[in-house]
């Protein structure tokens, strides 16, 4: 009862909209003990008489630490709410996480800082079985036309409610959430702010900041670098709305600017480029758009190129875009699968977190998915392993056939090269009981 009194006192302290009198009367009604009732009446009378200050109630609250917290639907709810003067979060600092930005970009003096709020991970954490889901990422660039199209294509996501972001908001298509191949879509609005507009970070989730090396670029160039060198290797399809960028010629300039930010030639051993889909409602200056494909660096940034003529913001146009997107996504997924670059959701989140760090070290070079994956075989010591293989060779020469030795070494290396199936539970699950 005393604890409940303290809780009510704290609520009264932290929530100015709740009057003390209301709380005490409520307490009086619920308490069954006569003594407590009497005490409540005394307290109420004292408070109403102005003799009991609010600080006394707060002081009483400090004597009792909070109980454990519970987390429900991204909102922190503390059973015992402490006053703001304590270090514990209060009801004022607990709010639902509304951040949907994939990344943030801030400038302090001449330095750029990339903030990774872990959006990729938080989206993927909501997947029911992230290890067995292979998502596709679609990157939309545009303004009004894009907003209308997204609203029509992803009807369950309430896209229009989100604040526009200059780099991209990242969302998961709710309808494909439980499928084997969920769709993640990035919503980029050129010209929109690139830093968080929704209050301070840290209250609802962790974020990591990376200072970008050698950066004195203009904001638009830096955004283009983030898009081309960090996000596009993880993206399957890039869809640009030419009308939103000012027509076909302006769209062509925009794409050239993107390509121009890949200053250093790609040395990636695992090339992963998105398919480019451009929607336009006009046939003027279409040549400018088509000529983009002839640009020197085009094929180092994009896998393929397709122009989709659409009537502006009609249901038929949206349906056509949706169908085309579906086909292009399927093609992109198949291409990545054939090149062993189709990651499951968990891998994608892990590799992206490492890639964002690598990007900050060298923003003009595309991130390498293979290097960013930090393969476990990187830890093998050449000298050490070669010594043991040499010993095995000395031992087996004359006792094993030549082909047997080759098989043994190759199969041992396979285990080191693909250690994912290492755990015995996987072996039992996939292959049945041990042969021994």
């Amino acid at each position: 009862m005393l604890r409940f009194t303290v809780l009510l006192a704290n609520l009264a302290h932290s929530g100015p909209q709740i009057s003390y009198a209301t709380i005490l009367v409520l307490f009086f009604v619920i308490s069954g003990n006569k003594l407590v009732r009497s005490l409540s009446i005394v307290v109420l009378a004292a408070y109403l008489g102005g003799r009991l200050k609010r600080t006394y109630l707060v002081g009483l609250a400090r004597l009792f630490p909070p109980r454990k917290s519970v987390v429900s639907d991204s909102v922190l709810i503390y059973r015992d709410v402490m006053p703001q003067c304590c270090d514990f979060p209060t009801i004022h600092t607990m709010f639902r996480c509304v951040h949907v930005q994939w990344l943030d970009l801030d400038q302090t003096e001449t330095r750029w800082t990339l903030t990774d709020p872990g959006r990729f991970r938080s989206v993927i954490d909501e997947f029911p079985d992230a290890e067995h889901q292979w998502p596709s990422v679609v990157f939309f660039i545009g303004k009004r036309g894009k907003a209308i199209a997204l609203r029509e294509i992803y009807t369950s996501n309430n896209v229009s409610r989100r604040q526009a972001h200059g780099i991209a908001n990242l969302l998961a298509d709710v309808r494909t959430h439980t499928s084997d191949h969920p769709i993640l879509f990035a919503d980029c609005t050129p010209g929109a702010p690139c830093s968080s507009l929704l209050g301070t970070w840290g209250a609802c989730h962790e974020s990591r900041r990376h200072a970008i090396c050698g950066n004195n670029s203009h904001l638009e160039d830096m955004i283009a670098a983030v898009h081309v060198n960090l996000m596009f290797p993880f993206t399957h399809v890039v869809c640009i709305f030419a009308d939103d960028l000012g027509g076909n010629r302006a769209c062509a300039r925009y794409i050239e600017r993107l390509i121009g930010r890949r200053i250093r030639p790609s040395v990636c051993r695992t090339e992963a480029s998105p398919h480019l889909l451009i929607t336009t409602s006009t046939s003027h200056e279409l040549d400018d758009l088509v000529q983009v494909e002839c640009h020197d660096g085009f094929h180092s940034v994009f896998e393929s190129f397709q122009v989709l003529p659409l009537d502006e913001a009609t249901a038929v146009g949206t349906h056509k875009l949706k169908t085309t997107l579906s086909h292009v996504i399927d093609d992109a997924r198949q291409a990545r699968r054939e090149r062993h670059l189709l990651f499951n959701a968990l891998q994608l989140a892990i590799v992206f977190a490492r890639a964002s760090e690598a990007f900050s070290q060298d923003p003009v070079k595309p991130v390498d998915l293979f290097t960013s994956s930090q393969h476990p075989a990187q830890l093998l010591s050449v000298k050490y392993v070669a010594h043991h293989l040499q010993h095995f060779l000395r031992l087996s020469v004359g006792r094993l056939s030549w082909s047997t030795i080759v098989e043994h070494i190759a199969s041992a290396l396979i285990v080191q090269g693909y250690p994912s199936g290492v755990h015995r539970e996987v072996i039992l699950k996939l292959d049945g009981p041990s042969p021994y």
Partner: protein
Amino acid sequence: MDHPLTNVSPGFSSQLVFETFFVPILEALTASPIDITPGQLLTTGLIGQQFVSFFDRLATICTPHNLRRQVFFKHQSAVARLKTTNTCLWCLIQAPQRTLRCGHSLCEECLDQYYAPGHGVYTYVVDLCLVCGLGAGTLLKVKPPTVMPSLLGFDGGGVRGIVALVLTKRLQDALDVPYALWEFFHSVVGTSVGRVITTQVTLMQQLNKFRWSYCT
């Protein structure tokens, strides 16, 4: 069909993985080629071909560890005759720590990965030998990975420091490995003359100037 190996870590192209991680190892291995049978030399290319071939099988039927089991099972009678305490015959990449009743030795990582845990922490029920398939019927305890670091200490005692040096040299010879004894330890410490030995030996080892002949 999606690659079954993508469950935990990305299943990159076999050619890429082989060239990146294993070609340097095999080039170090085949720097002095071993003539296994007359006219047939072990080359990186041969192992690479077999590696890619195994990877193709992985994509459709089994996990790498099961494939490894199949290879052992196929040549079990011949492989069972091999016995060594210098190299774990299962993984072929490190020295074994535990020897079973049948005489085959395994490293603790293989124990951890292939055997069911016992009742205690870091205890494994080794029912059958992975190499020969014979019954082992034993319960093995392994060193927890948190038991760190490994230390090598040299005692003091003036001229008697030579005893520690000779013993260390014999240990190095007995190990018969091409790298220094110090690499097995996280730290080397010493007191009095032991401190002098530690400083001289480890520093000169790093400079590749140390010779055991200095000590004896």
